[in-house]
């Protein structure tokens, strides 16, 4: 095993910041606090720049200036994906958000919120109706008698698990008697599912540590 330290100052900075964050494992300390605050500042700045160039400029400013500059006919002749002067509406709604800095006009920002909430509430409602509700119900339907006994047993366990867990989410009655038994079975299925989720997740978490250690070992210290 040989060691070959990196000569790139950037790698040294990255390694130092990594170690600052890891120092939290020992306890909260000034190095961690430094990294924490730097991280919050840089990440917020990064998102700001990203939104500015990739949405505000690319999707708003560019099409708007070209439409108002008369680049392709009437600025109002909108069609799918090309909204021309109509883009002034989201621009106005976006600017209204800044009314929050003026307490007397802060209520104006509700207009922007109203549109955003309306769009996403509507989109999500149907998205979940199709993708999570209908599709999941459909996916749960399977034959309960098959040629292979292993498949049949699994199908029964699956169906019982699904139905009892749904019963667990039933709010209109006290969970007593038969309902109580079913809801208890549902609880057991939930617990097995959570355990499996925990066990499965370990891999993901360890992976991240492996990634960081590989960086420290190979990229920074140059261990071969």
């Amino acid at each position, binding site marked *: 095993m040989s060691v070959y330290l990196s000569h790139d100052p950037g790698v040294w900075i990255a390694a130092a910041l990594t170690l600052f964050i890891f120092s939290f494992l020992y306890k909260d300390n000034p190095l961690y606090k430094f990294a924490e605050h730097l991280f919050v500042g840089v990440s917020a700045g990064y998102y700001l720049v990203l939104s500015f160039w990739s949405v505000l400029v690319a999707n708003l400013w560019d099409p708007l200036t070209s439409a108002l500059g008369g680049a392709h006919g009437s600025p109002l002749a909108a069609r799918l994906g090309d909204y021309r002067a109509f883009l002034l509406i989201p621009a106005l709604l976006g600017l209204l958000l800044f009314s929050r800095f003026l307490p007397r006009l802060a209520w104006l920002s509700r207009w922007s919120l109203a549109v955003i909430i309306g769009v996403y509430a509507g989109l999500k409602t149907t998205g979940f109706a199709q993708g999570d509700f209908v599709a999941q119900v459909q996916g749960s339907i399977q034959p309960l008698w098959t040629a292979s006994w292993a498949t049949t047993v699994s199908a029964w366990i699956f169906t019982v698990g699904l139905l009892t867990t749904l019963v667990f989410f039933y709010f209109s009655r006290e969970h007593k008697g038969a309902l109580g038994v079913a809801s208890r079975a549902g609880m057991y299925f939930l617990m097995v599912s959570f355990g499996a989720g925990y066990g499965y997740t370990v891999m993901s978490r360890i*992976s991240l540590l492996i990634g960081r250690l*590989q960086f420290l070992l190979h990229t920074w210290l140059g261990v071969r």
Partner: protein
Amino acid sequence: MSALDRLARLDRRWIFLVTGLLVLIPLLWPLNLPLTPAPPVRAYHDAIASVPPGSHVLVSADFDPAARPELEPMLRTTLRQLLQRRCKVVVVVLYQGGPLLVDQIVRDVAAAQGAVYGRDLVNLGFKAGNEAVMVLMGQSIPNTFPRDQSGADVRTLPVMRDVRNYSSFRLLVSIATGYPGTKEYVQQVQGRFHIPIVAGVTAVTAPTMYPYLQSGQLRGLLGGMAGAAEYERLMNERGAASRGMDAQSLAHVFVALCIVLGNLAQRARARREEG
């Protein structure tokens, strides 16, 4: 004070230390435990292997550096398999922290495979808006991504000549860490535009993908580093994921041991407090 008693009062920093060492040591001295590809991994590999050469494949790479150790090997191996099959690859990024990282990987693999940027593959870069962007892409991809990652007009790129929307693609590969990701593609795109999807996800999200796998909404699935390593195995490579699996094995055993020891210790303490 008994050993179990002392264990019950154990400072969690000792656990941190052991975890760190168990991961570090096999990275320095590998054990090379064997790998067997699971059926969803094989299905993922086969779905790509059955795309006719020359057709377009859409790769949505939605992860940030945090998910890199798990998803980067998947993206690399996937791009390699696609380019070796002479597929035309279009990469998009909908996850905020990802564009730069993905661009580096794409260029790196393209260079290694001798693929020509703009002719064999393109990286359209990032667009904010989550599902809304997914739906917009169903109308028109060149309108949604007028410029690629490096600012070139996508209409001038040969690889984009036949690309209109999802129907221009034979397969959608979603390599995703969270939201927006595979789940949203299944909901918004698979439901509306009927394009076959395969996915590579972190080990965390993998269990929630099983319903989609079972219902046929996903054609194949890579889950976490193990999925990536098994996929590398199918491609006869020994990449970063395969190398990390030894550390995984030891750490998994340790966490399992923690559950057992934690309970033994707690029980001992409870008994002593009773007595």
